[in-house]
């Protein structure tokens, strides 16, 4: 029974496709899955916008939107109608074709990333052998669309904002990839389904998720930092900060194109969290063996929403870093730690099973983190201060 619930979407698809003649079935199956993804994730995006506003509001001790629909849940409908009915202004001197294509490219690239995420047992759209590589290759096109947006607006402030955004995204691509390489090394495969399958074992009821290993925890934290920077979320949202000088790469966009940028940013957040879940949090596997009866897709989406909640929590708490500070942080702190993480992951593999490898790996990582943190603060002359009073 639980098995059927777990596979319910697969069975549904097979049943629907069964109505068509044999030659059409594979193509129809794929089309059906694609349509599901295209409908599901924007709906999730709509839910997330309300969730974010209400979450931020509760952190700030106020109620978020609650007038439109029960508990404000129809707010995205109102926002969508608003953005659709706004006038679509294209500046006269702007490059119209590129201006039109930039948001499209963003949304298309991000949707393609969803194709390789395993959202449940047997629920991958396309099981590519090099799924991780495909994901990162497509994900890099989002940076292209940001630059296209800034360039085509023919506005020097948009261009500055776009260049800053692209610089930030490129700098954090490297730690993002490096932290995933450790996972690939240990699993021995680039295929996302195999990575999840490798984590789907249990010892004494506890799972073998990579986050529960020293190198996995470090890798996950660095992946999370890099993911926050990739999607331009706080505390790395200088390119789109309203109170900064430069207004950002999407200044010259209004109406539905702006909504598409917004959609693209949130979908990028979903897909990067989905990848992080797959790599480190075990994808669709249950946290405890006794909970294995709960359908796998429920686990995947709960972990996804948990990551989104953490993004919102970070946004509500932390101030922004300045541009040069965040680039410094990427190149001088996160990247060396990811390289060290690779070594530690290798050591983990070759130290054999037992408690020694836990102690050694944790000690090395902890010392490196504390040492680099301390020297970084010293170099920048930061630190808590004590104040004296006048006598």
């Amino acid at each position: 029974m639980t098995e059927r619930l777990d596979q319910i979407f697969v069975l549904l698809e097979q049943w629907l496709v069964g109505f068509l003649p044999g030659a059409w079935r594979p193509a129809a199956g794929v089309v059906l899955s694609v349509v599901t993804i295209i409908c599901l994730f924007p709906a999730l995006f709509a839910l997330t916008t309300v969730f974010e506003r209400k979450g931020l509001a509760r952190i700030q001790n106020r109620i978020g939107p609650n007038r439109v629909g029960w508990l404000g849940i129809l707010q995205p409908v109102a926002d969508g109608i608003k953005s659709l009915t706004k006038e679509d202004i294209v500046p006269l001197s702007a490059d119209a074709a590129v201006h039109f294509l930039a948001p499209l490219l963003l949304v298309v690239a991000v949707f393609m990333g969803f194709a390789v995420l395993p959202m449940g047992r047997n629920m991958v759209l396309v099981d590519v052998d090099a799924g991780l590589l495909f994901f990162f290759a497509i994900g890099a096109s989002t940076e292209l669309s940001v630059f296209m947006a800034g360039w085509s607006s023919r506005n020097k402030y948009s261009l500055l904002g776009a260049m800053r955004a692209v610089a930030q995204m490129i700098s954090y691509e490297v730690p993002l990839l490096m932290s995933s390489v450790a996972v690939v090394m240990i699993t021995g495969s680039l295929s996302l389904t195999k990575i999840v399958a490798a984590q789907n074992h249990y010892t004494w009821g506890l799972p073998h998720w990579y986050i529960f290993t020293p190198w996995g925890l470090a890798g996950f934290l660095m992946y999370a930092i890099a993911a926050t920077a990739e999607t331009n979320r706080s505390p790395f949202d200088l390119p789109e900060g309203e109170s900064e000088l430069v207004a950002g790469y999407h200044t010259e966009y209004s109406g539905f194109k702006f909504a598409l940028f917004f959609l693209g940013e949130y979908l990028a957040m979903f897909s990067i969290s989905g990848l992080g879940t797959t790599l480190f949090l075990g994808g669709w596997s249950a946290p405890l063996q006794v909970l294995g009866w709960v359908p796998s897709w429920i686990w995947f989406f709960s972990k996804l929403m948990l990551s989104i909640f953490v993004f919102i929590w970070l946004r509500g708490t932390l101030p922004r870093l300045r541009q040069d500070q965040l680039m410094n942080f990427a190149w001088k702190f996160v990247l060396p730690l990811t390289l060290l993480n690779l070594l530690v992951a290798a050591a983990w593999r070759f130290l054999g099973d037992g408690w020694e490898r836990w102690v050694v790996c944790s000690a090395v990582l902890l010392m490196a983190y504390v040492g680099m943190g301390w020297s970084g603060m010293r170099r920048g002359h930061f630190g808590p201060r004590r104040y004296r009073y006048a006598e």
Partner: protein
Amino acid sequence: MTLGAFIQEKNKPEGWNRPLAMKPDGDGELLEVAMGPHHPSTHGVFRMDVSLDGERVIRLKPVFGYLHRNHEKLAEGMSYLGSMPFTDRLDYICSLTNNWAYALAVEELTGQAVPERAEYLRVILGELTRIVNHASSIGFLIQEMGASGTPLMYAFKARENVLDLFEALTGARMMCNYMRFGGCRVDASPAWLEDTRKVVAGLPQFVDEFERLLTGNEILMARCQGIGILKPELAVNAGVTGPMLRASGVNYDIRKVDGYGIYNRFPFRVPLGEHWDVYDRFMIRLLEIRESIKILEQALKEIPTGTVMDSKAKIRGFRPKPGEAYGRIEAPKGELGFYLISDGGPNPYRYRVRPPSLINLTILEDMSLGQNVADVVLIFGSVDIVLGEVDR
């Protein structure tokens, strides 16, 4: 170091007459940007014309006057009492301290004495205003740094309790119009004093929560330390007063220097900064909130019974004898002074406000030269201005 020591030691501090703008290195042309007047973080309608070389600020010209309302000229046509509600609207966040400064100036002009209960009430309301102002100022600074307003909302939650107190006593939350020449307008009931004690008892917890959220936050330290350094000599020569001056290490608090009202009965400490940067300015404000809480607790315990206004004091239709007077207080933003010249008529001959925000703003350029443009917003926020006072 005290103010006097500075003036004696260095008559002409280095750099006091250096040219205001730097020269750009590199042969690129300068990027001229106007920040404001429509800007989410300029504390009102204020414009800064900055010239940038890459990301560094080469010149900065502040442009203000968008909120000029002819306050000083209006006062020449109005009676002394009639100007009191307009003083509320100078520094519109701290209306009670504005009222107090004006009342002090007129009392100095006429020689009017103030009953003791009124003095205690003035101290209580003044310190409550100081706490509200400093908490909001810190909240706004962090909002500009992009924390989406969370510390601001916490500060406003504490502020709401204080505004309710103001409304119960004076009738209005912000434009209080409460001080009069010779005392206060209405007396405070024992129930009000009890409510105030409850609010003050809840304040240390708020300050602790605030501090936990902020100090030790590495991003805050990275953004604010080492930015916008203001050397003490330059601060003294430019006439900067208030928390900005104390964050630059100069021990000058008018509550201690003048001892106006009954401030010499309250033992409170004056925190001083040692690194003279933005981080010091906002930590000094946080420490001053704690000192104000101590003053409040003592004042609420010691407040005597009595009247709050001499029944024979005239508030309307009075004509002070010809003369001049300057009354100043330690407002939350700096030294707020009122200079009045009376010619014996019912209206003042000259009414001049010494706005601390404007005078603190004059060295914005010196503090921002060579800094990143993203830091200019923070430096500007640390000066803590209100445009109502800058433009009057």
